């Protein structure tokens, strides 16, 4: 089926450590920005989908969708929280799209939010590890960085790729992250600096790992006719939403599995939107660890298996390359506020299609964008396609 869900408004908080703000503050800030951008009143929101992963652990709060509904003033709209590891924000977006596409609702809000820095790193690491089988597989002392490090070494072994080769991905992301005013880490770095940064989980080094971040992002979605009736607004639509699950264990997660995690839902998404991988101008690809960017590039069909790392080195995935991958700086620079990330990716792509991305990050004449979010050891694949469709 084809689908056109209007993006009426977007909003996001800065992505950084924000001790002065609570989870509630972050959610309200992003939600209000999105409603202001959309020109809608809270009373017009008919349903609120909140993506939030770890409030029970990070903040000792639960039922955060109900909290957000109250403080955004969208009561009596229905409100629900959705969780699917790091794919959470993308799942909230999926539900928002389904709600509109079904014809049941006219206007809904998607809100992703996470407040990770109330706890020390060791506690945060333990909570994040719950997005894998923390009782069984991670009984062995694995964490998300170290679990993904095993994937990185598997990739290096299979394709004869060196750590230096992979370091170019971080260099590219940090080049753009330095230009992103809402990014958590804003500095450029060289291959040498990536190689010399402290080890986090061999072979992953600090500059190949995203920071823990406090942030929220929101979108107001509407039926196509509502956005069409406002021709002065940017005509950006979500034209495909496609979700998949995958393996729940690092030990059985092969490179084929990692490829299929995006390849399967992306194939459906391209069909739904009526586009191909070659048509995509700009992509936001999940990279909480640098190795996930080449894996994502391959799964989305932008490069063959084992070749996804090359674009960062030869320039073809830079802003003016064949396809701009992560011109926001990716999660490596924006940080990875778990439940917000999928929504942030969507907001960043919408900015690209509107032509309002910050200076140094805007892909010229971007018309078709894609966001790819993943979660768990290899457990969630979430693809959305966005298009600027005038008239």
């Amino acid at each position: 089926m084809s689908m056109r869900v209007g993006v009426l408004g977007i909003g996001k908080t800065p992505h950084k450590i924000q001790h002065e703000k609570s989870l509630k503050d972050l959610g309200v800030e992003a939600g209000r920005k999105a409603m202001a951008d959309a020109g809608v009143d809270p009373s017009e929101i008919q349903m609120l989908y909140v993506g939030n992963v770890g409030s029970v652990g990070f903040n000792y709060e639960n039922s955060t969708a109900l909290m957000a509904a109250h403080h955004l003033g969208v009561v009596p709209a229905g409100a629900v929280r959705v969780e699917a590891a790091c794919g959470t924000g993308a799942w909230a977006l999926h539900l928002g799209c389904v709600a509109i596409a079904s014809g049941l609702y006219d206007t809904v809000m998607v809100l992703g939010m996470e407040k990770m820095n109330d706890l020390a790193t060791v506690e945060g690491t333990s909570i994040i590890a719950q997005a894998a089988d923390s009782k069984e597989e991670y009984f062995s002392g694995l964490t998300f960085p170290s679990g993904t490090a095993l994937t990185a070494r598997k990739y290096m072994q299979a394709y004869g790729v060196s750590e230096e080769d992979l370091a170019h991905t971080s260099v590219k992301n940090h080049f753009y992250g330095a230009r992103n005013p809402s990014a958590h880490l804003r500095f450029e770095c060289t291959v040498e600096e990536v190689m010399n940064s402290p080890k986090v989980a061999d072979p992953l080094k600090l500059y190949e790992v995203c920071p823990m971040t406090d942030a929220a992002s929101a979108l107001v979605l509407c039926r196509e006719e509502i956005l069409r009736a406002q021709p002065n607004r940017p005509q950006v639509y979500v034209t495909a939403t496609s979700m998949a699950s995958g393996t729940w264990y690092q030990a059985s997660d092969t490179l084929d599995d990692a490829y299929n995690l995006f390849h399967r839902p992306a194939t459906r998404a391209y069909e739904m939107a009526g586009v191909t991988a070659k048509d995509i101008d700009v992509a936001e690809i999940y990279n909480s660890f640098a190795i996930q960017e080449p894996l994502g590039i391959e799964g989305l069909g932008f490069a063959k298996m084992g070749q996804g790392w090359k674009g960062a080195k030869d320039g073809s995935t830079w802003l003016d390359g064949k396809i701009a991958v992560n011109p926001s700086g990716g999660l490596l620079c924006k940080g990875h506020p778990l439940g917000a990330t999928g929504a942030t990716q969507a907001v960043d792509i919408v900015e690209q299609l509107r032509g309002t991305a910050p200076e140094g990050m805007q892909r010229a004449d971007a018309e078709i964008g894609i966001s790819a979010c993943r979660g768990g050891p290899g457990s969630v694949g979430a693809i959305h396609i966005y298009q600027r469709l005038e008239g």
Partner: protein
Amino acid sequence: MTVSAIEFTRLGAPKLHLFAMKCDKCKELSPWWERSHCYKCGHDTLTEFELAGKGEITNYTVVYYPPREFLGQEPYVVGHILMDEGVTLPAPVMGVAPDAVEVGTRVAATLRRMKLGHEGDIYYSYKFVVDDDPAPKKAAPARRAAAKKPAAKKPAAKKPAPRRPAARKK
């Protein structure tokens, strides 16, 4: 966010012996956590299968930032160990410097303290050490072939015979 000692009774004791799950139908071996269906053929009955405890490092990482339960052990090596029976298990590898780990190293299982629970309860389980067997087996057999012919079982004498529940059969 605490986990009570109640959980210890579920997670602690079963980790005192080294086993895989064997598919009753296709005989594929899976890690101990695959109890509901065979990852390969989908069959829903798997039986515990005791492992001899020898294998080879096929992949590894070094953890510098551990979860709370492993604090104080860092940096530590976690490897993917391809057991001689043909199943890959994740496990810490002891006695090797983080910069000296090598893929292909022969390792043997040994019972050690694994981690501390939230109430100070100590979890024991299998970690691996470099196997100083003077005549290590040649390259590990192919996975499928190995599953057909399990390596000879070592007498359990070397290890303290742990009390464990009778083999579960789903």
